[in-house]
């Protein structure tokens, strides 16, 4: 197991290195000296900074050496300093990271808390009215863009119930209840799709398991449907749910960008958005790499969880 964990982690680092490479390449592949051009556009940037950044990105050197510099800085955790306020990019991102992580986790929590029961009920009562209603709701959950859902929630809750989220973001350590109330709407808006995915995935995998010979045997022994589903089928059908979670991380992270903006949450999403507006290149690059790192980390964790739930995976998955 340890060996497996080590291997997954190494693999994760490898992919992260590739993310950095890709980011680097995308900048390089864009025609023209875009970086330099964009640097010059950034407000408040001095020629000295442009030259320094050009040197930092090594734009005056051969590509391979440039790449060396880039990776060199990265390995030391040095993502440069922000054009905007001159502070280290890493510091800026780490300040914003907790809010994004919290929002993401709450969205997942919401998705699991509602998605799992919905999926279970749907599977147990499959082809019933309630199943159809829930499936339909799930598909709607997947079809409604999260930003749109968020706007509807924010507007009509205020219009109909005179309620609006707290004005100022409070970190959980400052004021937990205010923090959670602030996070409520964005977490729902963001978690709706996750909920839908989990419910759908759980339903279909449960149905698959329920149709298996193993379950038929149990059922033939007179076990109630509830016992069958919860006790026997549940465990093996949890794996697809984890798959969903691992894959949803990407869209949840992406969704935080818009929702943080709408709800004035000081997370990485609002940071990268501000950075794009200010042409704050080091921050943009730093954020992209950080997002990649979170995604990879979560997926490694999901892989490891799989392995815990179902030891066979270790052998299957190791080669992929």
């Amino acid at each position, binding site marked *: 197991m340890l060996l497996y964990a080590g291997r997954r982690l190494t693999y994760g680092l490898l992919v992260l290195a590739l993310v950095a490479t890709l980011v680097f390449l995308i900048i390089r592949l864009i025609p023209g000296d875009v970086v330099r051009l964009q640097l010059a556009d950034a407000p408040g940037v001095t020629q000295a900074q442009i030259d320094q950044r050009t040197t930092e990105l090594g734009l005056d050197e051969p590509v391979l050496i440039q790449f060396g510099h880039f990776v060199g800085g990265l390995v030391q955790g040095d993502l440069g300093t922000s054009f905007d306020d001159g502070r280290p990019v890493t510091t800026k991102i780490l300040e914003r990271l907790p809010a994004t992580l919290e929002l993401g986790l709450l969205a997942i929590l919401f998705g699991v808390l509602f998605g799992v029961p919905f999926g279970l009920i749907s599977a147990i009562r499959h082809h019933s009215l309630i199943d159809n209603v829930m499936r339909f709701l799930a598909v709607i959950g997947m079809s409604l863009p999260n930003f749109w859902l968020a706007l509807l929630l924010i*507007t009509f809750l205020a*219009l109909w119930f*005179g309620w*609006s989220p707290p*004005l100022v973001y409070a970190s959980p350590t400052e004021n937990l209840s205010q923090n959670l109330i602030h996070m409520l709407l964005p977490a729902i808006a963001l978690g709706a799709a996750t909920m839908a995915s989990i419910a759908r995935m759980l339903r279909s995998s449960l149905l698959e398991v329920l149709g298996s010979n193993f379950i038929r045997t149990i059922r033939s022994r007179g076990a109630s449907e509830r016992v069958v589903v919860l006790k026997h089928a549940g465990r093996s059908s949890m794996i697809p749910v984890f798959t969903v979670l691992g894959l949803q991380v990407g869209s949840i992270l992406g969704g935080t960008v818009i929702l943080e903006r*709408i709800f*004035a949450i000081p997370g990485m999403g*609002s940071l990268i958005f501000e950075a794009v*507006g*200010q042409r704050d290149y080091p921050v943009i690059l730093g954020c992209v790499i950080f997002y990649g790192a979170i995604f990879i980390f979560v997926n490694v964790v999901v892989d490891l969880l799989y392995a815990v739930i179902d030891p066979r995976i270790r052998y299957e998955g190791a080669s992929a």
Partner: protein
Amino acid sequence: MSHPMLRLQRSPVRTAGAAVAAACLALTAACGTGTDASGKGEIVEDAGPPQDGGILHTAATTDAPSLDIHKEASYMTHVAVGTVYSRLVAPKTGKDVEYGSSELEGDLAEKWSKSDDLKTWTFNLRQGVKFHDKPPVNGRELTSADVKCTVDRIKSLPGHQLGLVANVAKLETPDPYTVVFTLASANTGFDQTMANPFMSILPCEGTSGEFSFAEEAIGTGPFVLKSWKRDQERVMEKNPDYFVEGLPHLDGIQTTVLPDAQAQIAALRSGKLDMISSLSTEKRQVEQLLSQIDGLQLRTEKGITQTRVFMNAAEGPFSKLEVRRAVAHAIDKEGMIKALRSGGSLTGPITPTLFGSLPQDEVDELLEYDPEKAKELLAEAGYPDGFEAELVATDGYGETILREAQWIQEDLGKVGIKLTIDQQDYATYVSSTWPETKYDIMYGLQTPMLTADEYLTSEYTSTGTRNWSRVNDPELDKMVAAQRVITDEAEREKALQDIERYIMENVSTPLPLYAYDTQTLYSGKVHNYYPHPDYSSRELQNMWMEQE
């Protein structure tokens, strides 16, 4: 991110003289009471004696880039820390003072006087004025030395505000409470210059680098900056040692950065916000809010921010005067105001509220909507079948500007100028496209300036600091230089108006369209809000809130 409220708050980079504020700003400006048809939204003028206490909750759509009022061109910085600082003198505000009045009152100065040759200005400071009790200044008394430190700092920094003190040849401080300015040339309005929010007096500890003005603001103003969480909130607390007895009334001001307009409106409904600046565009929204929220007050602010069509006078199809004049006549400006703004008035190069501006009827005539005439002018210019061009606009000023750009696109299309819209982000627009004249035709805003001369000199003379349309008209240069030395008021007004007429007829770029009105909504329990169109928000010291 694309709501007007969000973007409108970003005004064009401000010039030193642009102290008279952008009207699109929450905490500025009022000129009359706005009411809708139902009579809702009326401002309660007489709410009884002021009550102390309460925290004003307000919102901003973007935060200040930094708190340094000298290094930042963004007026958001002035809005953010305006109430922290004091100036030597400041514009008067109040119920009986006309909006935008240039009448001054002493702020740090108890009294001030000028010599007969208008070259020596003496300011006598109040005694016992204490800085906020924050390290490293620690509540020490303000003296004339701080004034000198401030002026020296402005002189040492690059920036638009340098122009304000460029004329100061010598600054002497004979005693701790006296400051004597000696000017290189006579200036009858030097006290007006000192009333500019850029002239906020900073403590010497800061100018010598003991703390950073970018992150900390220590002044002598009515409110103390308690905390600033960038892009989240600014918290101001009442200054207990404020030099004006009994002020401020409020215990504090809490400003939240809320980029989303819907979120701001929701918070106003739920009572979490006491005040929002509604945008000119959302008049129906405003009407709806007024009819739904009891006691909500609406202040309609007469516009001073101009919308402009910038055309490249040096290159491309718009270098032909006839084409530029065709553009002036092809756009249905009144329709635009009616459809997309809550009000406004057509304007010449000088904003209607300023001395020297053209009479309204004349402006209306010069900018008359007349597509047929536009077509004739185009034919004269050699474009009987029109031509194609790219219209630059930024989403940085909000959705409204983009809508207006599309309105212009349609109008110009009708006379044969087929435009495609090049939507640029604010950074590119303001730092490259505009100042480097990388456009043929562009639509955007112009931050209001303080005087007629500033508009004319900076934008329309060949050597102007903001001549970003590349105007080069020796005749105009001469006229602008000549008006500056006219001392007779009536004569000068006529000269200014002649120049404006000349610009409209012979230059026509940057082509002013209109100055639009804006609206501020605030709760029924907020009283005595009489803003001034500079960015300082000093009027908030007089504001008070009904206590439960």
